């Protein structure tokens, strides 16, 4: 599924209009995942996870419907499909109050931007770092 000119080609909801074209995070086509496959043990967790492309498309639908903030969240979500579960929980923990120094947050931002191509999520963390610094939400001891 391409992300270019999506507004011309795709219609919401994709489950109704484009079911046959949807691929899971694993790349497997959604309609190739049947009950028989599950019974045969021929299905993995990534076969039932959304792909970044699908979430980008959903972001586009949200923007077109006027829900810009939902769209921004779905773009971060699309990026985060590439981040493993444990690391997501680490990012959450780092953003809680008093957990991180300014530099820890900046390096987190750099790491996920470069390792996972999570540029919007990275920017969100950087914005948090600046606000935390200016309003006293950083970790108190110096590192």
């Amino acid at each position: 599924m391409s992300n270019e000119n999506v507004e011309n080609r795709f219609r919401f909801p994709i489950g109704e209009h484009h079911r046959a074209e949807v691929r899971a995070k694993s790349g497997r086509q959604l309609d190739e995942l049947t009950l028989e496959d599950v019974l045969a043990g021929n299905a993995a967790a990534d076969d039932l996870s959304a792909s970044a492309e699908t979430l980008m498309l959903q972001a586009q639908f949200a923007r077109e419907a006027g829900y810009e903030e939902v769209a921004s969240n779905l773009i971060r979500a699309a990026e985060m499909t590439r981040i493993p579960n444990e690391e997501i929980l680490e990012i959450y923990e780092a953003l809680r109050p008093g957990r991180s120094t300014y530099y820890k947050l900046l390096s987190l931002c750099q790491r996920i931007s470069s390792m996972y191509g999570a540029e919007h999520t990275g920017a969100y963390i950087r914005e948090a770092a600046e606000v935390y610094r200016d309003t006293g939400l950083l970790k108190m001891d110096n590192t």
Partner: protein
Amino acid sequence: MTQATTSKRFEKLRERDINKEVFVRELPKLGLIVMDSPGDPKPSLRIHEGRVVEMDGREDSEFDAIDLFIVKYAIRLEAAEEAMGLGSLEIARMLVDINVPQARVMQVFSGLTPAMIAEVMSHLNVVEMMMAMQKMRQRKQPADQAHVTNWKENPALLAADAAEAGLRGFAEEETTVRVARMAPFSALALLVGSQVGRPGVMTQISCEEALNLRLAMKGLATYAETLSVYGTIPSFMDGDDTPWSKGILASAYASRGIKSRFTSGSGAEALMGYGLGWSMLYLEIKCLLMVRGAGSQGVQNGSISCIALPESLPNGVRGVLAENLVAASLGLEVAAGNDAMSSHSQMRKTAKLMLQMLPGTDFITSGHSVMPRKDNLFGGGNFDAEDMDDWLVIQRDMQVDGGLRPVNEADVLEVREKGALAIQAVFHEMGFPPIADAEVEAAVTAFSSDDMPDRDSVADLAAADAFLESDKTALDVVAALARSGFEDVAESVLEMQRQRVLGDYLHTSAILDKDFKVLSAVNTPNDYTGPGTGYRVAGETWESIRDIPQALDPYDLVDGEAPDDRLRLASSGVSKEGTQPEVVVAVGPAFGTVMNKTLADLRHAEVLRAILDGIESEGLAARVVKIWHGADLADIGLSGARLSGSGIGIGLQSKGTALIHKKGLAPLNNLELLSMAPNLTLESYQTLGRNAACYAAGRAPHPVPMKIDNMARLRLIVHTALLHHREVRQIDADRPVEDLDVTFL
């Protein structure tokens, strides 16, 4: 001046449920004020070079992290200049004006500051807020969410209740746990049960954030609503979060194909000790702007578990509706509260509910308990299993869709059994501690978990831990269901997994119908623009809401038409005015011939005999006549009186209502009236006969014995209408009054 200090009526009032509540006056410095605190800022917004440099009277150098989050993510600067230039009163009127479409109001709200939104709300009364809510709700069709838990955390009962909730029409089901380690099993039972009840029901488990996310990643939940935000930074710190940490969780859930909504609500900050002099509504508006800024599709608000706090204050229920309305106007899905216990008083609870139920919100409640209160692990529900029929009747009364549908007992038992059997099969296939047949049987018919056998909770917890740590997911559940003959349930659980790949339900106000078709603000937006538009209860929806199983065919209420076979009434010709002392007993057109019983279930023969006995006991003669020209009681009685030699007549309708009338009186000015036919006994009729005879003879009448049953009218009003209709149908307008020869058989 009276020396009394207490009134017996006040004593009774003090005992009423409403006076078990705590009511206090406003105390703004502690945040104990719902709207319009003197501490609330005045609206302002200054933008310089694309940056907000002043908001609501504060310079950017004074902004805290919440303000910074709001100006960065929630306020659309391109809309702000025009929006903030409108007067708050003008915006309030736009909310109510059917000629201003929803999209235009949302555009204005996207550029408003918290204080401006608070000022807009202060112009609206509750009816205006309801009108606005009807327009601003995001999804076209309203819905409701169920709470499904039980004290014993029995998975068979949980699955049975989840199945019943699905059948009853709930679009979402939420569970929680008493013992946190049970979470994997409770989430599993809810998922399986819900899909038995109605494919496409979305489920969630409310537990600690990280565990919640893990369970969702296993495919055991499709949505989450545990993301709490607060309107002051100290409250946020107590919640161990910031707007950014909550925001990243929203993205994390969406990245795993899980729908999420935030939680906020009036009173939380004051309760945590950090109201800081601001009104509850102003703080809630800040929360809602953060929710919007985080990009969440929606929120559960409406004070939620703090509801008793705003309700202790003036304006509390209005303020809670205002926060629901603000959320909708900001384009957020609203699960509107009404979940936590809000009052001792049923009248007060219902009155509050109407504010959300009548206009309709995306979810009328954030949790409507399908169990009795003691099994509700959310701390007791505001509406419980016992309230289901009240809810359904209110829907039918008001032609309003509160999200639920009537069900038949047999259908409920069937889905409960299937739900319990399905989870039994899953536990068996997956090697979990067995669910006994006795548990399944008990779960089908249980009122509460008291009816359930105890389980080995140590074994359950150990197995739940192992399930969580294992690599087993919802796919193993699908396989287990399919292997044990529940292919349809397996297919539904599998389709719920596929929905995570599609991500359609991540959009605003999304739910799934029974065919897994998404209904959201994106594809089924609320298009209300006044009467005849938007969501109307009509067609099949109205038929199903209307047809509660308690509703009978009116004709089933009364026996068929038949004469009284113990009474023969033979006409002996047209009646003439009498000359002797007598009482004329005038009966209605259907009496004894087409009908045979009164509303009190007394045979016509016995009623007539009692009246005649009463007249005879005073030594007077009686004459029975039939009135053909009308069915009105006063008319019947007065017609009899006019024919009577004494001028006294008794009128008797076939349904049993009776009176004594006197020649020369105005029709409605009778001597004695027995209006409550259902309460009358043969003794009453006999006394009525005696009294009529006393009037005719110039003696003092006797009191008529009556039993009092104030509810009789409620029970019998339909019967009354049907029976009276029979009388009316026998009217022969041109036929004169006839004397009757009476024979008792």
